[in-house]
């Protein structure tokens, strides 16, 4: 009886209620404690430090003692040449990524579903998931090796075909294709899971009826598979568009070189370069940029969520 949560138990003043709750549920709080401590110390403590975006942080003065400077760092950032370029780079990298990357898993899922041989299907499914487990460092390393101007297999093929060797990793024009292409190679297979699950959930009677009516495979895809996939695809599209200004910092950092800065300079990498990697780290300035980005992304996600809830009844929260 001591564990029941009858609403009758909540009576009396707030102090009394807290005491009652604790007496009844203290064990749940104990189980929750390590997790809560983690979130408080590693997620909420840093939020206190956001104030340095409005200060001139000096290590000796600590966060509290550093002088307030208002919006100085924000003005500096928005006034700088890099600001517009970074917005564009971050946006375009994500936009092209979505444009080219989004349809691939859907097509793969539909065509995988049409394979006749169960064994081949199983093998194909296992195989396309594998690249997902390769680390970002190794993926970047593979790009450096395969696209190397001197020893890389790609350039060997180009020169063998009579072309001129390309220094891919130093060319601004090749940064986005390399980044997005390798992303599709790595994750398109893994992203089919959701669509395959949707397809396996379709009532087999629909296919049987279609077969009896003389539908070809192509017609079944068009009239059964695709209509079933549209709701989930729309949902994924909406959710993904919420991250159009978020950046995959660790991968971009690995693929950034002195040559491709014009396209590879995105927010996350810039914050890292200015605030951590630079010999004279500008903590406050980098925090200000990070804060701008966090707020923008927060607003985008909330907006996208509201739209999605209105349109499709599907929302994150």
């Amino acid at each position, binding site marked *: 009886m001591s564990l029941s949560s009858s609403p009758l138990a909540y009576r009396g003043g707030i102090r009394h209620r807290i005491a009652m709750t604790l007496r009844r549920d203290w064990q749940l709080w104990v189980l*929750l404690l390590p997790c809560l401590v983690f979130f408080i110390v590693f997620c909420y403590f840093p939020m206190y430090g956001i104030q340095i975006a409005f200060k001139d942080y000096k290590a000796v003065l600590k966060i509290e003692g550093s002088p307030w400077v208002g919006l100085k760092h924000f003005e500096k950032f928005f006034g700088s040449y890099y600001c517009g370029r970074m917005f564009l780079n971050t946006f375009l990298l994500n936009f092209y990524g979505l444009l080219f990357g989004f349809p691939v898993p859907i097509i793969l899922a539909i065509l995988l579903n049409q394979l006749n041989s169960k064994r081949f299907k199983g093998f194909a499914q296992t195989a396309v998931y594998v690249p997902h487990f390769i680390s970002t460092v190794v993926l970047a390393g593979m790009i450096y090796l395969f696209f190397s101007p001197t020893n890389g297999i790609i350039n060997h093929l180009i020169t063998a075909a009579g072309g001129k060797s390309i220094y891919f990793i130093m060319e601004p024009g090749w940064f986005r294709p390399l980044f997005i292409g390798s992303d599709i190679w790595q994750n398109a297979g893994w992203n089919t899971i959701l669509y395959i699950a949707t397809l396996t959930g379709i009532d087999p009677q629909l296919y049987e009826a279609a077969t009896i009516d003389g539908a070809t495979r192509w017609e079944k895809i068009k009239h059964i598979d695709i209509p079933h996939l549209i709701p989930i695809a729309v949902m994924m599209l909406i959710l993904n568009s919420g991250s159009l200004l978020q950046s995959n910092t660790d991968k971009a950092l690995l693929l950034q070189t002195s040559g491709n800065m014009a396209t590879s300079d995105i927010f996350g990498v810039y914050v890292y370069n200015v605030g951590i990697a630079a010999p004279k780290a500008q903590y406050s300035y980098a925090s200000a940029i990070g804060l701008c980005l966090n707020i923008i992304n927060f607003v985008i996600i909330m907006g996208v969520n509201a739209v999605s809830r209105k349109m499709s009844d599907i929302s994150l929260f």
Partner: protein
Amino acid sequence: MTVLSLKHRKRNRIRETRKDRIFNTFNLLFWILVLFIVLYPLWLILIASVSDPDAVLQAKVLLWPVDFSLMGYETVLQNSELLRSYVNSIFYTVVGSALSVIITLAAAYALSRKFAGKKLVNLAITFTMFFSGGLIPIFLNVLNLGLWNTRAIMILMNLVSVWNLMVARTYIQTTIPEDLYEAAVIDGSNHFTYFFKCVLPLSGTIVAVLSVYYGVARWNDYFTAQVMLRDRALFPLQRVLREILASLTSTGSSDTFFAAYADNLGGLQAALRKAEVAKYCCIVVATVPAVFLYIFMQKYFVKGVMIGSVKG
């Protein structure tokens, strides 16, 4: 009887139309192409790692190892920094994931029950998914706590993932029947005994899912070490790999990395050639654990994604 039923089945099957057979052929060809694109780069890495350096540098290794040699692996094994980082990575992955799984499961169980204040806790945890202090405040926080450049931060950073927590909570809510809880309470059980004696033994699947998710994420992470560590003795594998594989400016330094053993000029030349193949070997050694874990735990993995997609 079997013969009869087989015949029967054959007669009853609707024959595929010509259009369908064309479709099937093209689909099969398409999948052969897809599998080639997916698997060939991996195969290339594997065969290059056991080939002669000269053949690799001249791109003669295309389908099969050329002049089989384990020279690259010898170079890798002789490199004490790589070995040390490998041991570090195993330590961070095993200890970190074990801690992550326990903490996540305990919290997931608590959040699957009703109690006053749960809504607030849920909100506070979910909020961190969409808003964070940002890289610099996180870095300064770790610095202030005195955890910067320690082994502890490699364990504590990203200890609990909100996503995994939700997956675990949904799993507990949907697979462990409420009746069991009521029966346990009548038998005098409290939350602790119920969690340890009933929930944990029934959570084999989710423990596997979480271990693999956390394990692979930790094994593959380099960014935490990039920001939080300076002492080379603490570096995990991926951080060292970055210097060897994925950096133009340090291509030179990665060569010297392996060439440190050569004591004369001729030895240096040979070492530089070896270094190129050693890169392929590094990739193999770094990737094999994660990929194997995936292949062994395959069925759980997919299940994990499915649990996650059920809204809890």
